[in-house]
């Protein structure tokens, strides 16, 4: 039984999005970036949202984080646990973000503060949300970096981000995202900028975190391969809508939507199907 059918027997989803619509006003009407999206992420589940550019996958993620540009007009509902995210005040949202909900962006180098040592930066959520001293937060950062397999974390907390490789920076972002043991991690193409060998390590790390902490992960990507390796449940987005959803096995073995089929057929592979028996 997959996680989803187990979860459906009892309890409620970690994240529940219903009829989400995001419009960007233009002079002549509006551009609808997200068009009636509903999706769920269950506890301990890794859910993939896959789509090409312009599909609305990132806008869906940013809506959940309440990080959309100001001019975006949002409707629908987003619930994290019992909290209705779209109704929260900015102050309450700030409390939630980083605490119950964390974000791992694509470009770790740009997300990290270049003038702040890794240790302070990774520990900063603990200072802001848990009232730890910076000293205590840095020593906790050592543990967090160790948990994401950064070698010699006692020494590396003193480094600045530029002293970290791309893969290490992404690990530091993940460590920071884990600091407050969130219910949900939203990751937007977190491995797209990485070399494949490093990507494989980061994906393994995310699975490990899910297994260890039972954290739910909403994973945004354009890469079908990453979805196949990592996700339990998949939503396929196209032009602002979810065109298909299913378990990862079902989506890959028995795709029903024409767009999903086209995506699968377009994906170059090292394992050509004619050789598959």
């Amino acid at each position, binding site marked *: 039984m997959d996680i989803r059918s187990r979860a459906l027997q009892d309890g409620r989803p970690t994240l529940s999005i219903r009829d989400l619509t995001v419009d960007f006003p233009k002079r002549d009407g509006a551009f609808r970036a997200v068009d009636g999206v509903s999706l769920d992420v269950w506890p301990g589940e890794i859910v993939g949202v896959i789509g*090409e*550019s312009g599909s609305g996958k990132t806008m869906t993620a940013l809506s959940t984080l309440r990080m959309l540009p100001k001019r975006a007009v949002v409707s629908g509902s987003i619930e994290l646990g019992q909290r209705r995210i779209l109704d929260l005040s900015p102050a309450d949202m700030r409390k939630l973000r980083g605490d119950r909900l964390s974000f791992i962006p694509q470009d770790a180098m740009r997300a990290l503060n270049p003038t702040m040592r890794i240790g302070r930066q990774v520990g900063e959520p603990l200072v802001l949300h848990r009232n730890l001293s910076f000293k205590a937060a840095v020593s906790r950062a050592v543990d967090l970096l160790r948990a994401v397999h950064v070698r010699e974390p006692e020494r590396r907390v003193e480094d600045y981000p530029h002293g970290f490789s*791309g893969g290490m920076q992404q690990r530091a972002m993940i460590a920071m995202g884990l600091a407050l043991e969130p219910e949900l991690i939203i990751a937007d193409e977190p491995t797209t900028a990485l*070399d*494949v*060998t490093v*990507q*494989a390590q980061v*994906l393994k790390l995310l699975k490990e975190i899910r297994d260890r902490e039972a954290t739910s992960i909403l994973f945004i990507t*354009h*890469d*079908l*391969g*990453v*979805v*196949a*390796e*990592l996700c339990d449940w998949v939503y396929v987005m196209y032009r602002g809508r979810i065109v298909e959803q299913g378990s*990862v*096995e079902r989506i*890959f*073995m*028995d*795709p029903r939507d*024409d767009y999903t*089929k*086209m*995506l*699968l*057929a*377009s*994906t*170059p*592979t*090292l*394992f*050509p*199907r*004619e050789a*598959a028996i």
Partner: protein
Amino acid sequence: MSDTVIQIAGVTKSFLRGVNAVDDVTLSVARGETLGIVGESGSGKSTLLRMILRLIRPSAGSITLDGRDVWAASGRDLKQARRQMQAVFQDPASSFNPRQSIGAILAAPLEVHGIGDRASRARRIGETLERVGLPATTVSRYPHQLSGGQRQRVAIARAVIMRPAVVLADEPTSALDVSVQAQVLKLFREIKDELGLTSVFVSHNLAVIREVSDRVAVMRHGKLIEIGTAERVFTAPESDYTRALIDAVPDPFRRFRAPVELESGS
């Protein structure tokens, strides 16, 4: 041995700090063949391609095109070499002049090499655009008015309009959506076969390399790790590094062998 078009012998590029971006690489590309070069960042794959293109000067070694040393050429020989060898880059937006129309962009190489008159050039531009699947009206468009896939089609048109013998491509589809990538790769293969082009195709994406290449070279830290037919390198890699690379690729069809028609939709 088969007819060698590109011969790279003992090529090294040292940058500052004593690191060799490319370290004593020897390989050759036969006529009509596509050699794929695959590697992670810092492997030296793009530096090697740029040295063939005469954009970066090797610190040691030689590169010949049809038996003539690319770096020793000058005057008429150099012009000839440049005409024979065209390039397609990752980001066509940054390799086009944003203020030139597509027509002007495609006419430029013909004008530089004094090919044809105005009317015959216009005809050739029209034919080439049609060949890469763009409407004739594209000539009056500007780069920013085209999608990424359309721009890459223009880049391919610009490369083949000279009827070159060799096309060098550096991550030409890496910035494209997969559905667009599939179309551009298909176009690349068709044109290559039609014109009998010899090509070198650089990418970090193993699956893309497998799809377009006859032979594959794997690079790491500037060194050539192994080279062989695509089939051999991907099914029976000799080096542990190649094996590790293949194992690291998140490939949906490793786990799932979906019964999808390969040719549909592309």
